[in-house]
């Protein structure tokens, strides 16, 4: 179900009308059921995939708390299931094709089977969201949850399910567990967010996208035409993605939830580092907290710190898609951030942009 459809408008109107007539517990049940309907609207089997992730992570969280001596194994189980699902549905064909190509280059001709299976929508988002829960329980930063409905709703909450923002358990799960009251100011601002999001998507992104698609459908565009197309795509993806986040935040406010800001005007960034504090904030902070810092962050020798940074960006690029161009894109940004930081330090320039992290911050 997509936001800018009559199906969704009717769905939303029905759910929100019933929602505010119910007590807290029933509200969560309704939202959970509605989220599964939303997610399974086109492909009902997608719900089974998400249920598998939900079940394993719920179980793993409790086991980590009940059996702390073996919590590493339960975390490993959570990682294996979530990353395994990503590996199968998103990256299997990529790996198989690359192995085939490498073998072909050295003289072995193989024709391995490829999976012909639809990528479950939002799998990259909700698996990362669920993993943040199990990792935080493992580190002792939050308690395991014992209410399956609340936990399932944390994973499946429909406004942000398909394309983020990726919410941390210490933010969204807490809101799920807390009673919510109708707030007309919040609802009004939610309408503004939804309308602004729809405008960005239907007017800006889709019209600029036509320009970008025309350029990139050409096999041999001129230099000026190509870079006009790149500019068009840069505006399209910003309008498109920030629109989704705004609509998600606006819809969530109508249920009394506050989702984090995911875009903070990234194109007015004053440095590549500042850009990544403003672009897809929920993902960049997730990679910072669960990949970059555990790998060592900026500690240690300069070369090690540089490798850590660039590796994090490589993985982040790869998260976007099973193709080498996304890895190159990640590498490009990693090198930019590292080089501008290094030059900035060498010239003793003041830190640029906003120094405060926006992890889990709500507007």
């Amino acid at each position, binding site marked *: 179900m997509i936001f800018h459809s009559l199906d969704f408008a009717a769905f939303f109107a029905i759910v929100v009308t019933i929602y505010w007539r119910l007590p807290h517990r029933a509200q969560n049940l309704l939202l959970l059921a509605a989220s599964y309907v939303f997610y399974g609207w086109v492909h009902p089997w997608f719900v089974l995939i998400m249920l598998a992730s939900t079940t394993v992570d719920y179980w793993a969280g409790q086991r980590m708390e009940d059996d702390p001596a073996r919590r590493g194994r339960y975390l490993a189980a959570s990682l294996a299931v979530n990353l395994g699902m990503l590996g199968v549905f998103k990256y299997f064909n990529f790996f198989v094709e690359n192995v085939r190509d490498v073998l072909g280059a050295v003289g072995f001709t193989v024709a391995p089977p490829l999976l012909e299976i639809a990528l479950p929508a939002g799998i990259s988002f909700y698996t990362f969201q669920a993993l943040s829960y199990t990792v935080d329980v493992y580190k002792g930063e939050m308690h395991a949850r014992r209410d399956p409905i609340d936990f399932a709703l944390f994973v499946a909450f429909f406004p942000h399910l398909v394309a983020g923002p990726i919410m941390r358990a210490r933010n969204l799960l807490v809101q799920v567990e807390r009673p919510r009251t109708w707030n007309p100011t919040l609802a009004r601002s939610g309408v503004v967010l939804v*309308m602004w999001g729809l405008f960005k998507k239907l*007017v800006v992104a889709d019209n600029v996208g036509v*320009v970008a698609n025309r350029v990139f459908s050409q096999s041999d565009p001129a230099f000026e035409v190509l870079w006009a197309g790149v*500019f068009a795509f840069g505006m399209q993806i910003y309008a498109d993605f920030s629109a989704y986040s705004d609509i998600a935040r606006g819809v969530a406010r109508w249920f009394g939830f506050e989702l984090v800001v995911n875009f903070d005007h990234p*194109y007015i960034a004053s440095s590549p580092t500042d850009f990544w504090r403003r672009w897809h904030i929920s993902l960049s902070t997730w990679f910072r907290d669960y990949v970059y810092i555990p790998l060592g962050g900026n500690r240690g020798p300069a070369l090690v710190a540089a490798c850590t940074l660039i590796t994090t960006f490589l993985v982040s690029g790869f998260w976007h898609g099973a193709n080498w161009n996304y890895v*190159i894109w990640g590498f490009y940004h990693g090198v930019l951030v590292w080089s501008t930081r290094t030059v900035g330090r060498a010239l003793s320039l003041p830190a640029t942009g906003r120094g405060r992290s926006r992890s889990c911050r709500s507007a």
Partner: protein
Amino acid sequence: MQVGLTWTAMMAGWLFFRETDAEYLGHFLRLSPAVTMEGEAAIGLHFFVLAATWSLPLFVHDLWALARERQVAPVAWLESRLTGLRLAGVQAAGVGLLATLTLVLRSTTSLDFIYFAF
């Protein structure tokens, strides 16, 4: 200038994101303005102006945010005045305007949300 340079670097990076075919990517990176044929530069300018025109609301929104961050006096004054009923009125007017513009200007080509592919 820092904002301009960062914007240029970030924009350039989108080529790697958008073009998934390695052969085309390599070809595009080797393109040069020196071999542009007559009329092609004008086509490029046409596409750029078209994209920039549709993106105008984003530029305005970003410039407002930049002015707010740098605490430009008129912006700060205006935002301090937008409270209570006045804010509600502005929000209502804004929603009405956005809805009208969306109905009138929406693209005839409906594209999926890009991040649905991820």
